[in-house]
């Protein structure tokens, strides 16, 4: 017991000091943190949204919407592929119903070449070369394209990573805020934004698909038919954004949001808020050509399948600049401008979980949590002191060091402290002294049995070790499962418990043992004060 080598003493103190050093930046108020020397560690514990205030939003991709989009794109591809080249292939009755694209080749002798053309454009890319679509023929002359599982999976994967980037650009264009945007599983995106003042605005900003399209109005359509919902061939019927009826439009897209260079909020000549857009070179050329050919005819500006407005083309629009009006407020115009500038979401996203905590409640929780931790610790310290005297003092020093070590380790890993994490901290304080209780009770017992002071202490530490080890493993098992299955705040709780188990074994066993050994060596006590 007395034999406590110098290198051990030095390394134990070194660990303690390093731990305290790492915990300090997290304890300093942010104003004082600037004066903290830069050569010292300065990573801090981050606060969870339930303490810092903020929004946690879990989005799920609308896979049906994505599949529908793919079918429509394939329909367009079919039309353009069949009409290409020297020998055009005449087709009819193209449809996207039943989750597949099918069409009839009018001349039965051309069926094989139609299939050949479609196969060449549906060949999957990549090493495996798996197809995105299966191409087949039924009833002699009907070609059917069915999406394959791997094609669907790949398109979802692409859409999700693109959507993640779009969301990130929308909520944090400068890339400076401490926001989290990550994909979870195959079809989810988790967004965490600290310190949100207005979560509704945030949700509108993220949730808007922002698919902008310009199409010509179909003037040939019969208004009665349009009202009944029957669109002429090559046209479609879309609702007006203000809810005032429907309108028939040519299906072909003149230009879309993909061809935008920039978008920002501005005002029209009457001072009403609008979104000013600027097309890129390709978009400007196409827009210019179509407006040139269709002067005095109306075109429609469509956002997410709703028609914002259908103004008349008074003169060709050649510069590539345009204004979108549609009863905006400055706020909504600004949101739309950001959404357009960041690109459209490749797939519709729905909120499936929202947790928002106001900054005041978070601050209140921290305040109460800190006070409770301090008073709880004080209570435990007094109790240990009156129960074990000198050995209680050692346990208490270990307890305080343990608190610093937990914070220090959390800071090193930049772990997140959540509200349940504070409970975990308090609980760890209560449970950490258990090791010392076990040891001290064992020392009392061995001493009662007649062992000499040093022998009793030695045996006490030795015999208590087994139970300490087993008891802590049970904690580790439950905390590890909590960390694995738990989400957000609960995981924060588990992390604190896990770290606390490890550090408490160090402080309660090795650290106090050293303190006791040094005392025995220096004082050579004649009685055992326990």
């Amino acid at each position, binding site marked *: 017991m007395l034999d406590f080598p110098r290198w051990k003493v030095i390394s134990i103190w070194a660990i303690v000091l390093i731990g305290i050093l790492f915990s300090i930046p997290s304890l300093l108020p942010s104003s004082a943190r600037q004066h903290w020397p830069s050569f010292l560690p300065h990573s801090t514990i981050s606060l969870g949204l339930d303490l810092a205030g903020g929004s946690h939003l879990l989005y799920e991709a609308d896979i049906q919407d994505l599949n529908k989009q793919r079918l429509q794109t394939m329909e367009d591809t079919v039309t353009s592929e069949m009409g290409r080249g020297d020998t055009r292939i005449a087709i009819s009755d193209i449809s996207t119903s039943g989750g597949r694209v099918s069409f009839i080749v009018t001349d039965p002798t051309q069926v094989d070449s139609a299939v050949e053309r479609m196969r060449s454009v549906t060949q999957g890319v990549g090493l495996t070369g798996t197809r995105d679509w299966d191409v087949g023929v039924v009833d002699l002359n009907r070609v059917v394209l069915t999406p394959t599982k791997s094609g669907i999976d790949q398109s979802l994967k692409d859409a999700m990573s693109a959507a993640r980037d779009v969301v990130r650009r929308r909520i944090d264009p400068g890339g400076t805020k401490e926001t989290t945007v990550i994909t979870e599983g195959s079809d989810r995106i988790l967004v965490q934004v600290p310190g949100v003042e207005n979560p*509704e605005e945030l949700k509108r900003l993220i949730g808007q698909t922002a698919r902008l399209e310009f199409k010509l109005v179909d003037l040939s359509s019969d208004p009665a038919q349009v009202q009944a919902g029957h669109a002429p061939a090559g046209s479609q019927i879309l609702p007006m954004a203000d809810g005032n009826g429907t309108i028939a439009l040519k299906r072909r897209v003149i230009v879309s949001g993909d061809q935008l260079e920039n978008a920002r909020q501005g005002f029209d000549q009457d001072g009403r808020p609008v979104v000013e857009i600027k097309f890129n070179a390709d978009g400007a050329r196409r827009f210019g050509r179509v407006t040139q050919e269709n002067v005095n005819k109306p075109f429609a500006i469509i956002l997410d399948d709703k028609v914002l407005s259908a103004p008349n083309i008074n003169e060709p629009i050649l510069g590539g600049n345009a204004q979108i009006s549609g009863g905006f407020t400055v706020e909504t115009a600004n949101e739309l401008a950001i959404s357009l500038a960041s690109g459209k979401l490749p797939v519709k996203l729905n909120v499936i979980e*929202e947790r*928002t905590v106001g900054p005041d409640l978070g601050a209140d929780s921290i305040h109460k949590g800190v006070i409770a931790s301090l008073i709880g610790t004080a209570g435990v310290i007094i109790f*240990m002191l009156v*129960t074990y005297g000198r050995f209680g003092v050692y346990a208490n020093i270990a307890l305080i060091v343990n608190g610093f070590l937990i914070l220090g380790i959390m800071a090193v890993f930049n772990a997140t402290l959540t509200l349940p994490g504070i409970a975990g901290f*308090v609980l760890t304080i209560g449970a950490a002294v258990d090791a010392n209780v076990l040891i001290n009770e064992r020392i009392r017992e061995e001493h009662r049995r007649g062992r000499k002071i040093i022998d009793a202490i030695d045996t006490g530490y030795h015999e208590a070790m087994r139970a300490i080890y087993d*008891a802590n493993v*049970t904690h580790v098992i439950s905390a590890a499962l*909590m960390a694995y299955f*738990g989400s957000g705040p609960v995981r924060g709780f588990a992390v604190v418990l896990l770290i606390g188990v490890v550090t408490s074994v160090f402080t309660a066993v090795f650290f106090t043992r050293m303190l006791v050994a040094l005392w025995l060596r220096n004082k050579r006590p004649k009685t055992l004060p326990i």
Partner: protein
Amino acid sequence: MRLLKLVPDHTNVDFMRWRNLAVVISTLMTIASLAFTAYRGLNMGVDFVGGQMIRVSFVQPIDVEQLRGRVDGLKLGESSIQEFGGPKTYQIRLPKAEGGDAAANVAATRVKTMVTSTYPGARIDSVESVSGKVSEELAENGAMAIIFAMIGIAVYIWFRFEWQFGVGALVTLAHDISMTLGFFAFTRLQVDLNVVAAFLTVVGYSLNDTVVIYDRIRENLRKYRKMAILPLLNLSLNETLARTVVTSLTVLIALAVLMAIGPEVIFGLSLAIFLGVVVGTYSSIYVSTPVLVWLGVTPDSFVKTEAPDPTVAPAR
């Protein structure tokens, strides 16, 4: 300085004398808890059944009935309003909105708008909105974590000790979890994600006591090979009694402070752990230890002898 000794030096309590009575009580309580939980159900929070919960702080105490009338006036389905931590703070709970996630969003927004416009200065503290799909996943994950933790710990005890001890640990855990469940069913306290964390902590903590006692039983079984099992269990329990009391008290002190002055949001978590510690302390003495008697633990359970010792009484 005279040190505090809550438990005198030489206790000789005949714990095992009441073991049959204790088992009857424990069994009845467990059955009652489970039956009560099944009959009355748990007050599941939005985390596990979906829906929305909005917490609001008002500037001054308000008329709850009036607020209830106003929320009902929005026609968002069956809402419930509860005081939360004080007379100025309330939580408004809305059911899962019909018509999917967009509808859920609209519902929460309408409540928020109503509150901030009719009660000047009112502060929206938090909004939780969980869809049916996510709540199912959370409930499933929570249940899985608890079950895996119970099995994992029992298996660990089995490896470290003997199979009888593993079974004893599992029975103890089942007992403790049932009691805690029954308590939540009885008090109608809301069961949310935090409470699941508390259950897992109870699983870990409850075994803490049991492990310490099991460790002592194993030690004594090796030391006093001729001692009958009941006196040996009593001896082990008495030897560890001081530690059991002191440790439980330190944890309870810390938790009591947290419940009394800590943040309201984690009151349920603290209470569940507090209760689990009390139940766990009882069960480590009266559930996990008697089980060993029935499973026939003897000194032979640990000392692997090539030739069986005929002088040792066979397990009964």
